[in-house]
């Protein structure tokens, strides 16, 4: 098990390297940070000095090597736009995004899995038909539209929930949490639903189709023939067998929830990393963008590792060293 984890981490290193190369290369050629930082009025001497300060006069690979060298030490340089260390900026924004993503993932799993089980078991009930139609809407409406609709209904018309921001936060060490205040929790509801809705419908449809597949198998038929109660058949035998694909998708979805919180954060002006990224794109703030992409890549790599470990926990056929079939 330990050697498995080590080998997966070693495999992840080239992935991270390539991601950093691509992101760095991409941003080195989009936009001109110097022009944006200098504004309208500047002399050629000021410009040359700034280019030298930022190290932009050096060849591309020297810039990249410096970037990697610093990145390995957790040092991503100064933000061009805010003149503050990038690592500090990201650490400051990360709690907002992570809390939002966790809530969205929690909603999509806690609602999506039961809905998937229900629609898989009672395929022809009117509630199943309703849920499937609803899920079609969830899949096909773009996230920003859902967010705006929710704001319109719950903030503008009903006035129940705030339309932007994070509410009051409580600081615990460097972590700022919105979980502990009423306004923080209220502010969390709409963005979390917006972000989780697409994943919710995907998970529901996945669980439903897996459930229907598993219910047709011989071992479910045999479980029925042994007279096991439905509860044991559905929630024990059937559900556990649907878990492997569900874990895979749910894991990747969690990654994309964190990565694609950008749209939701923009709609709700959520002070997270996504909003930071969008603002940095506008200012061609290369260090922030590169660091953000590296971090997202790291998140995906970590989630994949956890997903692989969960496979082993769920499916005994994958556990090596115990097979004794004769």
């Amino acid at each position: 098990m330990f050697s498995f984890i080590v080998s997966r981490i070693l495999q992840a290193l080239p992935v991270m390297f390539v991601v950093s190369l691509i992101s760095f290369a991409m941003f080195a050629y989009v936009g001109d940070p110097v022009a944006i930082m200098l504004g309208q009025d500047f002399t050629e001497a000021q410009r040359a000095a700034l280019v030298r300060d930022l190290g932009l006069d050096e060849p591309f690979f020297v810039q990249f090597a410096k970037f990697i060298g610093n990145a390995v030490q957790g040092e991503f340089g100064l933000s061009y736009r805010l003149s503050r260390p990038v690592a500090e900026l990201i650490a400051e924004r990360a709690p907002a995004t992570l809390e939002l993503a966790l809530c969205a993932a929690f909603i999509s799993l806690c609602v999506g899995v039961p809905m998937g089980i229900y629609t898989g078991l009672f395929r022809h009930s009117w509630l199943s038909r309703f849920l499937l139609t609803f899920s079609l809407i969830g899949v096909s409406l773009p996230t920003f539209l859902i967010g705006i609709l929710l704001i319109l209904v719950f903030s503008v018309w009903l006035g129940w929930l705030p339309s932007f921001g994070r509410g009051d936060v409580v600081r615990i060490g460097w972590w700022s949490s919105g979980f502990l205040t009423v306004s923080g929790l209220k502010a969390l509801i709409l963005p979390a639903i917006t972000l989780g809705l697409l994943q919710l419908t995907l998970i529901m449809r996945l669980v439903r189709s897996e459930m229907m597949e598993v219910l047709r198998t011989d071992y479910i038929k045999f479980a029925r023939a042994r007279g096991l109660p439905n509860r044991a058949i559905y929630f024990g035998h059937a559900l556990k067998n649907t878990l492997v694909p569900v874990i895979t998708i749910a894991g990747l979805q969690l990654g994309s929830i964190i990565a694609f919180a950008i749209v939701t954060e923009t709609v709700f002006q959520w002070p997270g990393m996504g909003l930071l990224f969008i603002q940095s794109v506008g200012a061609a703030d290369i260090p922030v963008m590169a660091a953000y992409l590296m971090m997202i890549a790291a998140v995906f790599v970590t989630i994949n590792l956890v997903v692989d470990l969960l496979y082993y926990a769920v499916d005994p056929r994958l556990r090596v060293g115990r097979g004794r079939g004769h």
Partner: protein
Amino acid sequence: MSLLQVKNLRVEFPTRRGTLVALDDVSFEIAPGEVLGVVGESGAGKSMTGAAIIGLLEPPGRIASGQVLLEGRRIDNLPYEKMRRIRGREIGAIFQDPLTTLNPLYTIGRQLVETITTHLPVGPGEAREKAIGWLELVGIPAARERIDSYPHEFSGGMRQRVVIALALCAEPKLIVADEPTTALDVSIQAQVIAMLKTLAREKGTAMMLVTHDMGVIAETADRVAVMYAGRISEIGPVRELVRHARHPYSQGLMGSIPPLDRRVERLTQIDGAMPRLSAIPRGCAFNPRCPKVFDRCLVERPELLDAGTTRASCWLYAEGGAA
């Protein structure tokens, strides 16, 4: 009194192009401790009969008419929950493919304990001891160590032994065994059948043994029912049926078994194929392939008639028939 009575059972499948009759007027009985072999070609309705008895017909299949009685009680119209308590406890089932009938994610011990505690008033510890006992009975070596193994850690033959233990562990009075050895190596088949037969005899369990292996039937069954196109074409004691089949179809079926004690130039074969359910001919379903067909067979469908030591659904044995 019979343990199981099946009376005029009719199973239908409503489809878009009309209703298919999968089983028609099937009647038979099984006495306590008796082994009834059910033979026939694929699609003759053997497995369907078993599924109808345990109340697990695949939808949209349904029992359209007729009755299934267990010890005199009707069980074909019971609500799901009552029938569930009968399955496993009073009627056990063994399926064809041991590689797919065990849940791959649970240890065999867990599956056994779960089944035992569902039906018998025992705690988990006692159930586990019982489970080990059953594994020993079905011939799993080192049962105590292997009870916590997963299905994929066993070979096909061993897995079918586990399946048999699962079917028997709540001590049902009847076992419906649907081609229990078809998926196994030939060398293993005989072992598993012998074990099943011995266990059924020791426990006094009756068995409905569905197979298309006449050798297994001849060796194991007390009586045998031959099915053709959703009906029973002949039923009787196994000795009589193997040696002196009355129905032309059973005669053809028995003629296709190579005898070991004498040389034959050619085995008998039955020309043609069994009709599809959507195209069963008028009159006797076997009439297009029957060598002894006559006028009445083309218009009227025969009931099971006394044909000496067996009962056959063939007009040859009607009073004033062709004979």
